[in-house]
């Protein structure tokens, strides 16, 4: 749920500014590797999260430049990033660690968890919740947030007002990339204990679904991430219950998160409104 | 507008108008945000006349025309086109009943920029038997010869029929579009800002074409933000303000200043609206 929430919240802010990043899946994949690599270099899991954030920011910035100055088709550029990651990550795994498909890093590099009366909580999870609230405040209570929303709705007005449309959009896409990067690094360092080549298994796209579900509201996105996290966990819990698996083949249980996504998005979509210029580059007339 | 060049006036004959080809009663249309943009408008356009709607842009003209062209749903009211009552108008209904539509934004509605000239020449006419068979095959020979004909008849300057419309000048794009619409043999022509952004030659040419249509006995509904244009070629004029007709009358009866004031929402004479639904007897 944590990576979903981080990526979805970042993408909410990004899409508010009118930029769509379909490449979250690719960012997850690449930053999971860079995160582990940094963690190993510094011998510290938290540094790994930073390494993920940095790589994510670079990727987000690059996509931002392509979208803003290159006037790229953002969906195609994002898909390109996903395809790139699909090939680049296995290449990276074998180039960095000389082992195909998987790399297990030393256990002490795992980001430690806090033990609370309710169970163990990763600081990153707490951070993700915090980020959602901060993003909400940013968008709705600050001047910068107002500008970000304005850039998505009326870039021409923002432009006339003497603000830089390009800078604002670069800012949000870099920020979105960085958050997704923390999520990507969290996958191995806070959760899996290893990097595998298909590490994100569609989570980047589920994060996008959370964004749609949330109608670009960070707090709702957080809720959506929890819901999908729950659907995922629920699927696994159902799968092991004796008596259930004999009747419902596990294949159908495995579909639960994806079917949930489809159904939920189909149900709420009519009530969601998206910024006027979403996905479209801004060109001064 | 500043620095406007003088456009030569279009000459026209005067002829009594015929039967109404378009009757609109109490039409209400909402805008994209769901607010009422056209607040109960009634009027007629008769064969052989140009009915001009003047007004500052954004007073509901776009919504009105889109409703008449079947591009926007009608909230309430009635439309009768060429004798047929239509509740849920679609673009195809409009064409089927003899309507032609020169849309306000040619780049948005009227043309597909990356399609070539020939393909654009049948846009909205693609279903006509002349251009596609019953099985749905496009008849390229017919399309090309028709496009060639359009190019010649309406003086469209283009390197070839396979040139993407994107690379034509604005004037030539509009000539192609207007030519395509007028060659539909319509009974009603809806023309919105037909000469906006065009060079003088094209402007004059297109106004002449509209007048020619009128003279051939077709009804023309002209919507334009260019007051000169409305005054120059219309027979009757209505001024639209905040979704309603604030005033109307025959072109001879209205002064330029009067219309200018009405466009600003001021009705000097407090004209009643009965003139709008003019029946032949009220002349």
């Amino acid at each position, binding site marked *: 749920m944590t990576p979903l929430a981080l990526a979805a919240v970042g993408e909410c802010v990004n899409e508010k500014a009118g930029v769509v990043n379909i490449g979250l899946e690719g960012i997850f994949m690449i930053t999971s590797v860079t995160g582990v690599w940094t963690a190993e270099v510094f011998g510290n899991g938290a540094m790994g999260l930073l390494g993920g954030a940095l790589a994510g920011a670079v990727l987000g910035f690059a996509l931002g430049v392509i979208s803003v100055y290159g006037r790229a088709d953002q969906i195609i550029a994002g898909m390109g990033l996903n395809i790139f990651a699909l090939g680049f990550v296995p290449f990276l795994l074998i180039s960095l660690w000389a082992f195909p498909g998987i790399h297990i890093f030393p256990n002490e590099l795992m980001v430690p968890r806090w033990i609370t009366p309710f169970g163990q909580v990763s600081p990153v999870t707490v951070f993700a919740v915090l980020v959602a609230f901060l993003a909400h405040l940013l968008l709705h209570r600050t001047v910068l947030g107002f500008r970000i929303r304005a850039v998505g709705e009326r870039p021409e007005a923002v432009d006339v007002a003497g603000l830089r449309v390009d800078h604002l959009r670069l800012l949000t896409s870099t920020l979105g990339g960085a958050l997704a990067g923390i999520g990507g690094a969290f996958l191995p360092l806070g959760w899996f204990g290893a990097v*595998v080549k298909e590490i994100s298994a569609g989570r980047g796209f589920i994060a996008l679904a959370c964004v749609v579900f949330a109608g670009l509201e960070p707090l709702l996105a957080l809720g959506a991430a929890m819901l999908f996290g729950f659907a995922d966990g629920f699927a696994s819990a159902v799968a092991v219950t004796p008596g259930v698996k004999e009747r419902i083949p596990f294949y159908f249980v495995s579909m639960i998160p994806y079917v949930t996504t489809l159904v939920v998005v189909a149900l709420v979509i009519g009530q969601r409104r998206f910024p006027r210029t979403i996905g479209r580059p801004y060109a001064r007339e | 507008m500043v620095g406007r060049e003088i456009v030569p006036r279009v000459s026209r004959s005067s002829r009594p108008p015929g039967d109404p080809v378009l009757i609109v009663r109490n039409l209400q249309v909402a805008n994209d945000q769901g607010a009422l943009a056209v607040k109960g408008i009634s009027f007629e356009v008769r064969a052989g006349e140009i009915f001009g709607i003047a007004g500052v842009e954004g007073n509901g003209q776009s919504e009105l025309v889109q409703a008449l062209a079947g591009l926007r749903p009608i909230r309430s009211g009635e439309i009768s086109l060429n004798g047929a009552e239509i509740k849920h108008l679609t673009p195809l209904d409009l064409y089927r009943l003899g309507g032609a539509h020169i849309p306000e934004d040619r780049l948005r509605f009227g043309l597909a920029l990356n399609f070539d000239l020939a393909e654009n020449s049948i846009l909205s006419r693609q279903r006509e038997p002349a251009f596609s068979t019953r099985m749905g095959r496009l008849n390229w020979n017919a399309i090309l010869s028709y496009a060639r004909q359009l190019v010649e008849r309406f003086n469209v300057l283009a390197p070839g029929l396979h040139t993407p419309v994107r690379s034509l000048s604005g004037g030539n794009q509009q000539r192609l579009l207007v030519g395509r619409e007028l060659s539909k043999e319509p009974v009603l022509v809806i023309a919105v800002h037909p000469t906006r952004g065009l060079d003088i030659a094209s402007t004059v040419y297109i106004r002449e074409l509209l007048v020619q249509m009128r003279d051939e006995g077709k009804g023309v509904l002209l919507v334009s933000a260019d007051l000169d244009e409305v005054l120059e070629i219309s027979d009757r004029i209505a001024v639209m303000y905040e979704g309603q007709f604030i005033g109307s009358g025959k072109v001879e009866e209205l002064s330029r200043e009067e219309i200018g004031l009405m466009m600003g929402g001021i009705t000097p004479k407090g004209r009643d609206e009965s003139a709008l639904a003019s029946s032949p007897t009220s002349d």
Partner: protein
Amino acid sequence: MVELISKVEADYVPNLTTAARDPDVQLIVGVGFLLSDALAQVAQRFPNKNFVGIDTFAQSIIKEKFPAKYPLPNLMDIVYEEHKGSALVGALATLLAAHYNKPYIGGVFGIEIPVLWKFEIGYKWGARWATEWMFKNKPDKAFKYRTDFVLWTYTGTFSDIPKGYAAAKAMYAKDAVAVYNIAGPLGLGINQAVQEIAKARGLKMGPPFWIGVDANQDWINPGFVIASMMKRVDKGVYYATKFVKDGKFRDLVKQTKGTLVLGIGTKVAGELTEGISVSTLADLDEFIKMGQTAEKLTGKKVLPAPPAEIRAKVKAMREAQPQWIWAAVAELEKKIREGTVTVPLVLTKPDIEKWRKELG
């Protein structure tokens, strides 16, 4: 040795062809049952090269399609008796459950492809054998085998580690004493679940345990991996290379009809050639040595802790379990080796249905 990793399984023919065309190559090894068709085809086209498939059944394809050529002289399938190894760890887990008074044992599987049925039924069969053994030898601990005794689930993935974590977590929540990993990297997810419990309860050693598969995975989390069901692919490759070097390859193909079975007590030409076992401390040492070599080669840290520490922890864990458990597992292994018991080998749908009815 050059290794070619196929990304699309349909690439196999061209992949093998690429290797076979290299004049310096004498032996081409393909790993994975999906290579069977490709091996059968390419081996015929390059009669001068030797081909080995791990987990394949290329010769049976030859037998079916080109009976005149069977067995192809330059092709050897190497197959493993994973069901037997799975039976051993199934028994081990069950005995642990009896010792610690736990209600369940677990198994986390990958995508439900029939190959995994071997593991599944082997594991459950071993569990049942252990319950029967206890009635005879350890009546105070004995309990009757129930069809819900083994918690098992197919996760539909061999790579999505959290699925392994979630499945294992649910099993440990039901107080399963040990969970068998039959899903490759998903073992790391199982490990996460174990670690979480260990941390919450401040444990230095299981229970809960998990059981490794294929390679020796005891070192991943010393003290919590009770053992691994080892399938020594490296040994298969080693034997094959040795046969080629000694010039015995084609003779052996003729003798074995092209299929070399590596398992428990399996022999070739009178020599013991085994490939399946439950990990021991000696195996651990061997793997630690491999890890150290890898660390030297790559300059990167591979082992989670200093070798001596890993070894000490694993040793302590093993010694903390009562001797009779290890003895019972050894007894089962001996019986399997002697052939006095037979572990069912399940590969077809009717079989799996029948056995699931019986074992749960």
